[in-house]
């Protein structure tokens, strides 16, 4: 069956611009997670949705980062006023229980 999909696969933007990253979870998965993976490091938790609500957003680094999941399926991670330090691979995962299935990620480069 279809796995987790993320678009775009690559995004290059200029410092100060706004970006949106999209995640399409596995159908029927109520839990959705965003992680960020910087070069040479493991994924770092950002935010967790259970249904439409953000159950845990403790990993968002600052108020420039925001995520939504209005209908309990697709989620969008939004980054305002991007900075070069935001450059990373942004991973989405979905889950029906304790096992998380990851998407291919969006590689964000801020120039």
């Amino acid at each position, binding site marked *: 069956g279809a796995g987790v999909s993320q678009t775009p696969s690559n995004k290059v933007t200029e410092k100060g611009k706004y970006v949106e990253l999209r995640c399409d979870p596995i159908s029927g998965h109520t839990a959705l997670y965003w992680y960020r993976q910087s070069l040479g490091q*493991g994924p770092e938790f950002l935010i967790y949705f259970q249904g439409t609500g953000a159950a*845990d957003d403790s990993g968002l680094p600052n108020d420039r980062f925001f995520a939504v999941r209005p209908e309990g399926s697709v989620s969008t991670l939004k980054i305002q006023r991007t900075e070069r330090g935001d450059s990373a691979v942004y991973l989405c995962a979905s889950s029906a229980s304790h096992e998380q299935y990851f998407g291919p990620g969006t590689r964000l480069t801020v120039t």
Partner: protein
Amino acid sequence: AQSVSQHNHHVILSEAASLELGCNYSYGGTVNLFWYVQYPGQHLQLLLKYFSGDPLVKGIKGFEAEFIKSKFSFNLRKPSVQWSDTAEYFCAVMVSGGYNKLIFGAGTRLAVHP
């Protein structure tokens, strides 16, 4: 704060050699433990997991891991590696009451030479 340490950042082996990748975590409560693998050009995939019961868990492709609670460790092993095992391996912890978020180690990059 909880953390996960993977002792080796890069490992180079010849085919048929045995593999052991170290993983230690810092958390005194109940944990679920995972190893994920990322093959070149592919996304993260679950290799194996430990929730409870037998501390020796077996995963896909001949991998196994042993949970030693007293050592806060969950080391990954394979008796005989293949060239196709070349990948990056991540250990991860899910803490009880932590909303199921995963805390990852920095990863170990394994290169297997034919």
